[in-house]
């Protein structure tokens, strides 16, 4: 938590995420900007129809890595007021949100940059995994190109 009362909210949940709730949770009277990122689940991969996605996490470590990201955001953008990062786990039907990040700041530049930093860093460092289940064929564990020890950084088709 920031010294001046800014809140770091972190949630891992099997429940459906709500952009409205995240937005409301970071709104504050001194802030002229709330920036939101909503990551949703796609319905296709390389021509295969995706039926659903399943997420799992190393939850205590995922929460600890998310807290590190919040702390880095506050160092890089000290004007940031509230941060809320929610990640869904378990089965996520296609088109529903798997991750929502909301950040408020007095002016838009800081919260916009901070939201981008949050999602890019989350993909590289937070221990969460996604499996795609297709209409036909074997399910597939995905790899983020941002993950330094995966090998899909070499494969521009995946993300």
């Amino acid at each position, binding site marked *: 938590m920031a010294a001046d009362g800014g809140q770091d909210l972190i949630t891992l949940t099997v429940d459906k995420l709500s952009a409205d709730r995240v937005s409301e949770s970071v709104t504050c009277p001194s802030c002229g900007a709330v920036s939101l990122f909503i990551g949703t689940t796609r319905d296709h991969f390389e021509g295969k129809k995706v039926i659903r996605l399943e997420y*799992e996490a190393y939850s205590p470590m995922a929460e600890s890595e998310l807290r590190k990201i919040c702390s880095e955001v506050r160092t890089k953008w000290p004007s940031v007021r509230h941060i809320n990062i929610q*990640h869904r786990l378990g089965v996520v039907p296609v088109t529903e949100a798997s991750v929502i990040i909301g950040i408020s700041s007095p002016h838009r530049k800081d919260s916009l940059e901070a939201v981008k930093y949050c999602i890019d860093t989350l993909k590289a460092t937070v221990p*969460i*995994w996604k499996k795609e289940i297709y209409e036909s064929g074997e399910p597939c564990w995905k790899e983020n190109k941002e993950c330094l*020890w*995966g090998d899909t950084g070499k494969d521009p088709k995946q993300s």
Partner: protein
Amino acid sequence: MNTEQVSVLYFAKSAELTGLKAENITVPSNISSLRLWQHLETRHPRLSVLRDQVVLAVRQEYVPLGEQPLTLRDGDEVAVIPPLSGG
């Protein structure tokens, strides 16, 4: 040589390959992360497909596979971390 009992957690593809979510194993306390990984591969040969794209987490901090000794303590949690795909 001192040995410690540690709890190994398997996630994502590593859980499917081993058929396990977790197990307790006994290892030397000053084992390197690379030797620990090789020990896990010996127990579960199917893990070898992950060899070049895996890191461990020890007490919930990432440790790449390498020669540095880990200084494990009894009851420590070690996790097998395949490439991440959150977000």
